[in-house]
């Protein structure tokens, strides 16, 4: 019997892929393997930055809100922090994506594990994008409903989502790079821990409003 080799496997659309990534990660990772790398990681990183700028920094800037904690950078006055973030945040986001992907790669190589920088860039970039709508939805719900102790509530919800991201990324490293899940989780945890003080000191930090 002749095989139907001309039939291409079904390719998911962006929205399908997003839902699959959130709720059926294994299926999504099969799809991600076939995507151009590191292009998808870059597009995801740029898209995430654009999303955050449009849904968070731009509205805060237009509403004339001034962050409650002062700016940590002397050349960015607190009064114009959100305006400056419209430009600084995408650059910062891009730099963080590159540094953390390279860090994961180097640790894996030094440990003698299999490593592929293009796939690491793709997994890291896509992980940032996939969870951002969930984070932004929670942030704005909290702001609009005026939740009591907003920074604490947001801290807890962000922590919960961070754990979700760690598990998701570890699974990605396992499916795409063949790494043990504990190693993927450990690396992602390390990156998350390094990122917390950095993102608190630099643009991502001042989100309290």
């Amino acid at each position: 019997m002749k095989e139907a080799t001309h039939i291409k496997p079904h390719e998911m659309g962006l929205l399908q892929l997003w839902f699959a990534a959130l709720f059926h990660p294994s299926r999504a990772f099969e799809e991600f393997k076939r995507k151009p790398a590191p292009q998808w990681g870059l597009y995801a990183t740029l898209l995430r930055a654009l999303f955050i700028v449009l849904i968070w920094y731009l509205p805060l800037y237009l509403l004339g809100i001034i962050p409650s904690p002062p700016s940590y950078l002397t050349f960015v006055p607190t009064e114009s922090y959100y305006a400056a973030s419209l430009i600084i945040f995408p650059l910062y986001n891009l730099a963080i994506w590159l540094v953390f992907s390279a860090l994961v790669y180097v640790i894996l190589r030094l440990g003698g594990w299999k490593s592929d920088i293009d796939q690491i860039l793709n997994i890291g970039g896509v992980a940032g994008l996939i969870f951002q709508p969930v984070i932004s939805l929670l942030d704005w719900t909290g702001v609009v409903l005026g939740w009591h102790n907003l920074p604490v509530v947001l801290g807890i919800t962000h922590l919960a989502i961070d754990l979700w991201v760690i598990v998701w990324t570890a699974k990605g490293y396992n499916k795409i790079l063949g790494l043990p899940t504990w190693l993927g989780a450990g690396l992602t945890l390390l990156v998350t821990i390094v990122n917390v003080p950095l993102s608190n000191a630099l643009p991502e930090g001042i989100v309290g409003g």
Partner: protein
Amino acid sequence: MNFVQVWLSGLINPIRSLDQLKGKPAPQWGLLAVLTRFIPTSLIVTFPLFLLGREPFSPSYLTFLATSNYYVAQVFFLPIFGVTIWLLMSAFAHVALRLAGKGSDFDLVLNIVGMGMLIPIPVVWAWDVTMIALNLYQLPVMAVSHTLFQLWETSIEAVGFVRLLRLGIVPAIGIALIINVLYIAFAMIFIR
């Protein structure tokens, strides 16, 4: 050639030195190069400046780090900055090459950028220590001299991209220039 021979021969003949980099452990040599540059720099340049009670030429850009304490803090964070900027420069070069449809080997890129950062550094150390000793460690002199050192580093990295990644001269110089502009931008914010 061992690591030190590759490093020191790069001062005189960077083409021969970078050719030797092929087949060496990567990215281990890149990381070793970066640490060999930044740990001694913090000990033989930044630490003496702190001991002499000197203050940076330009004020701190970080509100949580006073200008008067900058050098003592920098003794500790300079190596971390060095490794971070090495990762950023290398990853940027790799992604730029991949987007341009050029072949790239990230291990080699990490080694090229690391050795590019290390090769000129004995001259930089000798210069900085002499300037400190002669009390000439001052803004115009240091700004001009360090710009020249940065151009030297840029040219070594460009040579590495040409010899080891088989890039054309123009793209190699272009990428080396861009990643060194990145270095300068971050160094201007964090390093004094």
